[in-house]
């Protein structure tokens, strides 16, 4: 059993950047440009993303020639955690910044990088994830969306589901079958950059339990995808997808979903906060410290070019359980607040409604625990 979470404190330049981000957020709030929300994947505001881009905070670790700022992974960590802690509306650019951009940087052609990365970094184009299908959820290798070779490119046919903000984003990175599995179900998969407004693409809304339209079903009917939009090697899709996982699973969005709730409770704690409230806040701080220490260690490992997928799975599972437990804890404490503010009740309603999604998105609890068990040598 070798799980590595070395102590990686933030360097002074990252802490200086934190002060800048806090000033930026304070100015945005003072100007009434948005209200603090709770969840990284629900609050969509393209204008906010563009203002963030203007500060150089989207694609900030990428090379300058692709529109990046060549800042460190730890500086990016600070920007993301501060925006999440503030409940900023980050959903528009989140996937492109976290996942699609780094994928193109790693596997994309020079032309793809030149076309997409600067536009992502300017906050002009946003991406969705095109992985899940009606019959391929946790069992992602069961995808049936197929891309067949045609003159000049590929013809894409199939269906993706739970495609968050496909109705507002510009592109999706679609995982599709391009060859026979030939006994290995992870073989014959490829990734494509698909224009969500291309002929043959139909985006159908799926309203979630909270009443919001975030999810979509996306149907591809013989959609022409030019050869230039194939990402990496044909047939190497599985390896490429799994290389994104450490980025996808280890970040602060996996344990900060209920921080706003705790902060809102604190803000209406009154003159004499009860011992139970003080205890709950303290226990939350302790859990948060451990998760943040682990998440920072992974950020440093990713910066060093390592792929700590096992450690990332562990942070996500632990983080999701932590953020969900907090919802129950602060709900029970509502009667100790003097009185519960409108902001607290709004945060309580949102976290309560969204909590079931936390242990599903980005890898279910069951998949994560299976991965960890494999890492422990149990399977």
């Amino acid at each position, binding site marked *: 059993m070798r799980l590595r979470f070395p102590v990686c404190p933030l360097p002074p330049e990252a802490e200086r950047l934190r002060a*800048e981000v806090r000033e930026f957020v304070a100015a945005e709030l003072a100007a009434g440009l948005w209200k603090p929300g709770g969840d990284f994947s629900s609050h969509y505001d393209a204008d906010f993303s563009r203002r963030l881009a203007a500060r150089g905070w989207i694609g900030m670790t990428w090379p300058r020639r692709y529109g990046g700022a060549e800042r460190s992974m730890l500086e990016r960590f600070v920007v993301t955690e501060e925006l999440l802690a503030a409940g900023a509306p980050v959903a528009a650019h989140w996937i492109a910044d976290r996942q699609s951009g780094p994928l193109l940087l790693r596997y994309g052609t020079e032309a793809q990088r030149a076309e997409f990365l600067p536009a992502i970094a300017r906050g002009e184009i946003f991406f969705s994830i095109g992985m899940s299908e009606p019959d391929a959820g946790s069992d992602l290798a069961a995808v049936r969306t197929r891309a067949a070779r045609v003159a000049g490119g590929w013809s894409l046919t199939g269906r993706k589901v739970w495609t968050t903000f496909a109705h507002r984003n510009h592109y999706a990175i679609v995982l599709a079958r391009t060859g026979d599995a030939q006994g290995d179900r992870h073989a014959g998969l490829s990734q494509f950059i698909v224009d969500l407004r291309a002929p043959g693409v139909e985006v159908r809304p799926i309203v979630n339990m909270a009443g919001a339209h975030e999810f979509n079903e996306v149907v591809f009917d013989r959609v022409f995808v030019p050869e230039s939009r194939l990402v990496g090697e044909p047939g190497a899709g599985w390896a490429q997808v799994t290389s994104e996982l450490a980025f996808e699973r280890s970040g602060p969005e996996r344990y900060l979903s209920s921080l706003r709730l705790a902060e809102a409770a604190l803000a209406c704690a009154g003159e004499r906060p009860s011992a139970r409230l003080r205890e709950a806040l303290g226990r939350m701080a302790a859990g948060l410290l451990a998760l943040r220490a682990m998440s920072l260690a992974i950020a440093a490992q990713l910066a060093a070019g390592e792929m700590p997928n096992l450690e990332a799975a562990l942070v996500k599972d632990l983080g999701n359980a932590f953020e969900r437990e907090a919802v129950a804890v602060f709900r029970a404490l509502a009667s100790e607040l003097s009185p519960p503010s409108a902001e607290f009740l709004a945060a309580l309603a949102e976290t309560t409604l969204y909590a079931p999604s936390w242990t599903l998105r980005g890898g279910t609890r069951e998949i994560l625990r299976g991965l960890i068990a494999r890492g422990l040598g149990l399977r």
Partner: protein
Amino acid sequence: MTAPVFAPDPLVADAAERAFADLARSYYAQSAALRTEAREALLAAVERLGFSDALPAPDGRKSWAQAAPILRAQARAAAPIDMAWLLATGDRQGAIAYDPERYDARGGPLPEREESRLALALGRLQQIGAALESALELTLGYVRDRRQFGRALAQFQAIQHSLALGAEDVAATNAAADWALACAATEGLASARLPYLLDCAALVAGRAIERVRDVCHQAHGAIGFTREYALARYSLDLLRWRDSLFALRGGELACAERLGDRALVAKSLWRALTAAMNSGGTEG
């Protein structure tokens, strides 16, 4: 990449792992009647090997890189000598003045000096982190060997998932413990950040001990509940060290309430946390 600020000395770790394993083996080979004397002999051996010299300097700096691997090796071997007490107080007799097979839920004695209490708390966290790791490793080995219903326990998904949870708690405990240790190693025991980090690490460890003990004992079945089997040693050590840790910090609830108060004073849980985890950059 920023280099980790604190790294245990690998040479000390190697030597200590081997030595404590040998010492523990010969101790447990003695009959129960001779074990008090055997603990004296163990203490003398530890001193001969130089492991008692890695005492943290009064300001708590520098020698943690040697002390931490020694503490962890002792905990992993379940060697019946309280190295954290010895290193934090220099009190030889106190380090062997207990019966490792007894448990009384009192949290043991507390050192008089504040620096010794802080150093002991840091030592307890390292011992706990290492004992949790060992208990889990022992359990991983057991479930791979033990067969029921015609297959190894390791093949049951329920077992796999509960051990995955155990691994999460072990990792969280060590991550938090190492942050507190790194703070002491670089800034000294007088660091204003240290109490916050210690309280957090203690709460994480306390919760992990509950859950990891449960997972390990459950997977072992009755054999883990016997005195002859090694899990019992880790299990008793963990209980003893948890009680000691919370006694040093004024109790589990006091840890939590203090941390809560820090959030209330800062008017933000997040700001209090990020300030306490900031090792010297400007505060936002």
